[in-house]
């Protein structure tokens, strides 16, 4: 709806959004660089346990209860979190979009059936469901991704369905029907491009919640035992909370900062996609009547 150039200009003007983007890029960079900066196993013991950050014998962020390098854990943990976050949001997005667009376009009994299914998935509490799924199947990164995707897609489906219903009545869709365009083609080329903005915003929010769900699962010990995740680190440091709180605090701060960054980016995207009320008013001023030039 607006040229790409305008979009980035608007985004750039939003300081918190730019800061959020910087944070996210930094986390991504650190995650990607983890094997370079900290080659080897983050589980391996590098020194004395219980060393505080700043201690002359300690690595940058200290060591945990068993003497593992916390900094290495944070960086490798970033990889886990981002992977889970990204893929689960992606799968949820795809499933939700397919269900939502089909339900919204065909309406009638198709819509009823699909929406009942969607509601069924939506009414169970998401974290609990993810937990049960992971507990039932072997806990691994793919299982977690699947579990989170399964609980997240209904939100996308609702959104895409609402947008599809709205757009379906537009004349430009009717025009395509009149010259014989197939339904699938209409959905893909006409309707979905117009859903893109709210969809992107929703997907970005889902990435953040996926990271939080994953952290919760790994805190409870239900994550992939072979992967060191931020949640696991918090869990490990839990017993030493009173004396060596840094062990839990540091991965906790990592989660906080990442999720915050992603949320700022989501808000920035939202605002950039919908120029604010003030701007809309200005744009509308020369045309106050219902007629057009």
């Amino acid at each position, binding site marked *: 709806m607006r040229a790409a150039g305008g979009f980035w200009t608007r985004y750039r003007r939003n300081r918190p959004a730019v800061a959020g983007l910087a944070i996210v890029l930094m986390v991504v960079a650190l995650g990607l660089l983890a094997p370079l900066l900290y080659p080897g196993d983050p589980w391996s013991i590098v020194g004395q346990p219980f060393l505080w950050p700043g201690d002359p014998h300690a690595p940058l962020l200290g060591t945990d209860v068993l003497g593992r390098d916390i900094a290495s854990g944070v960086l490798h943990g970033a990889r886990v979190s981002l992977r889970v976050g990204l893929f689960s949001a992606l799968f949820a997005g795809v499933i939700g979009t397919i269900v939502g667009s089909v339900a919204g376009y065909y309406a009638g009994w198709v819509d009823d059936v699909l929406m009942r299914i969607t509601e069924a998935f939506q009414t169970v509490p998401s974290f609990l469901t993810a937990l049960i799924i992971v507990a039932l199947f072997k806990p691994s990164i793919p299982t977690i991704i699947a579990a989170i995707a399964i609980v997240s897609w209904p939100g996308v489906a609702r959104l895409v369905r609402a947008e599809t219903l709205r757009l379906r009545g537009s*004349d430009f869709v009717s025009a395509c029907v009149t010259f*014989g365009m197939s339904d699938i083609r209409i959905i893909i080329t006409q309707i979905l491009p*117009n859903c893109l903005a709210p969809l992107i915003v929703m997907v970005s929010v889902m990435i953040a919640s996926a990271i939080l769900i994953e952290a919760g699962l790994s805190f409870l010990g239900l994550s992939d035992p072979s992967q060191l995740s931020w949640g696991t680190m918090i869990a490990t440091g839990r017993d030493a909370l009173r004396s060596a709180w840094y062990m839990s605090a540091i991965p906790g701060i990592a989660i906080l900062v990442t999720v915050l960054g992603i949320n700022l980016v989501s808000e920035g995207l939202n605002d950039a996609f919908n120029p604010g009320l003030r701007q809309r008013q200005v744009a509308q001023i020369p045309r106050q009547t219902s007629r*057009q*030039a």
Partner: protein
Amino acid sequence: MSTALLEVRDLSVVHHKNGHAFRAVDGVSLTLARGETLGLIGESGCGKSSLARAIMGLHRPAAGRILFDGADITARKWRRRGRAVARRLQMIFQDPQQSLNPRITVGRIVEEPLLVHGMRGRGQRRALVKSLLEKVGLAPDAGERLPHEFSGGQRQRIGIARALALTPDLVICDEPVSALDLSVQAQVLNLLADLQDEFKLSYLFISHDLSVVRHMAGRVVVMYLGRIVETGPAALLWDGGRHPYTRALIAAVPGGAVSTSRERRAALGDIPSPVDRPRGCAFHTRCPFKQSICMEVEPPLRGVGDSHAVACHFA
């Protein structure tokens, strides 16, 4: 040509509002000959847009038949009608804001019908799109821009270009100039007239604006609350209208100095909702000449002269 290009027989379209079903179009019949411009005039609730959409296959009629060049196309959508019909029957929409996909370029919008109908050769398609855009009076580089960069009048032109892409025989114009300023309206009406001459098009021209229909149409159909109340040559919109509603429409035209006897209070009160259609003659609630029979019996459409028919007990 003996067969009419478009023939509608006893068509009815049912809509649902708040759980009530009502007939937006009720037993409408009309014919449109090749090369003709048939004007369809009526105010809100008359069913003209529903009729247009049913003819285009966007809404399934509840009863009746639609024949295009002799072939029955009553079934909804192109799949059952055949793509060949979709090529020859096209539509121009009313709202310039809604009729174009805001996310794709104008060139792509006009190209889409060609793609759907399997026109090969990207270069060939692009060339055709360019010539169409020029034909409707837009700059050659218009194809690369997005719809929001154009004014309302220009967007209507784009819609016209899209409708012409498949060289149709019949174009249904659904209120094509209602949302435009007067001077822009003149440009678009002139354009439609020129294109009709050049491409030998037939038009079903729908509008609530009497002046516009007077200008464009050769024959007219006047609708009120889902039914035809009068049909005949366009001259009846000047002074030959026999139905009280037609006369009310003529009297209501602002600045119209046509009738010598201007009955200013020709239609009393507001238009009833199509959901609550009055019994008998639908116009009786507003008709200055109503009698008791009008409240009970629906008047049939009777011929009163040379291809002129009226649905009134007393016309």
